[in-house]
């Protein structure tokens, strides 16, 4: 890329040969390399949802419509630990009631949001399962190129705590770009 070459020439005009190679290698985390100086391609987008989310703002849809060719996966995760806690403390009947309610709320939200995506010409894949809201997203994210998360994913947010700690944990651990809305 012409731009990259001119940048390198300007910054490294007095450095040649092995020294240039060594500097590039040792300071890689500070310097954008030629391979990295390309417009990114996003082929797969993961969008986790849960009971703390009711909708996706229109600005997010507008941004995501730039990736119409990508595969979209909407995943609703029900906290397995909460399910087991209810089962142990309140009994099987109460835990079954919780499961049914969560599954029905989850499917409703997944279908509602899928409809919004369909209006943009995007047909997302839907998944619903019991699991760990942070660990499962971190693992699933490895198979995607972008993650889209609500600030309230995993816990309620307030004026004094405007970002869910689950979101912060996920953002710290994943290696792909994340959109937080």
């Amino acid at each position, binding site marked *: 890329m012409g731009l990259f070459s001119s940048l390198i020439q300007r910054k490294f005009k007095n450095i040649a040969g092995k020294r240039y190679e060594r500097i590039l290698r040792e300071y890689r985390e500070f310097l954008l390399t030629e391979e990295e100086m390309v417009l990114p391609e996003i082929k797969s987008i993961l969008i986790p949802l849960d009971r703390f989310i009711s909708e996706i703002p229109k600005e997010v849809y507008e941004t995501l419509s730039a990736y119409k060719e990508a595969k979209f996966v909407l995943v609703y995760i029900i906290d397995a630990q909460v399910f087991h806690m209810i089962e142990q403390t309140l009994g099987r009947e109460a835990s079954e009631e919780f499961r049914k309610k969560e599954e029905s709320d989850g499917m409703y939200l997944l279908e509602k949001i899928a409809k919004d995506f369909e209006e943009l010409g995007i047909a997302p894949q839907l998944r619903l399962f019991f699991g760990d809201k942070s660990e499962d997203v971190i693992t699933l994210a490895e198979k995607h190129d972008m993650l889209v998360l609500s600030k309230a994913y995993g816990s309620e*947010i307030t004026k004094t705590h405007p970002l869910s700690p689950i*979101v912060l944990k996920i*953002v710290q651990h994943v290696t792909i770009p994340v959109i937080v809305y």
Partner: protein
Amino acid sequence: MKILVLIDGSKWSQKAALHAISIAKKKHAKIILFSVLDRREARAVAFNLSMRSDKLGEIKKFEEQIWHEMKKSVKEIMVDLLELCHEENVNCSMKIVEGIARDEILKEANSGEYTLVVMGAYGKSGKTRIGSLLEELAGVIKPPLMIVR
């Protein structure tokens, strides 16, 4: 659609700009490259250098030199990105302000003008842990925030 890209001079903020350009190209969006220069940074570096080199008498001169370099460096990065936008046919402009990064970024990002804010996950100190500024901003920026690695 208008995209705000936070540029701090780091490799990560340049990668953030690449993501913004990619979206802007498809959505015919406008990009604003935004940077905040904090004079206190120049002052701190000048003070530490002068103390160690036993040249405290020249601290003001050091501070001015560092301040000048900070401005020049961020401008150079932005001009390179503007050139890239131009090559990709993307409408792009730059805005550099002086002040405290967190305050100025919040003022700009929450002005109601932007559909998306894009920033790097790490700062100028490299890939150590997620940037502290990001932790502060993620909850309080109103438009969706894209964090790039």
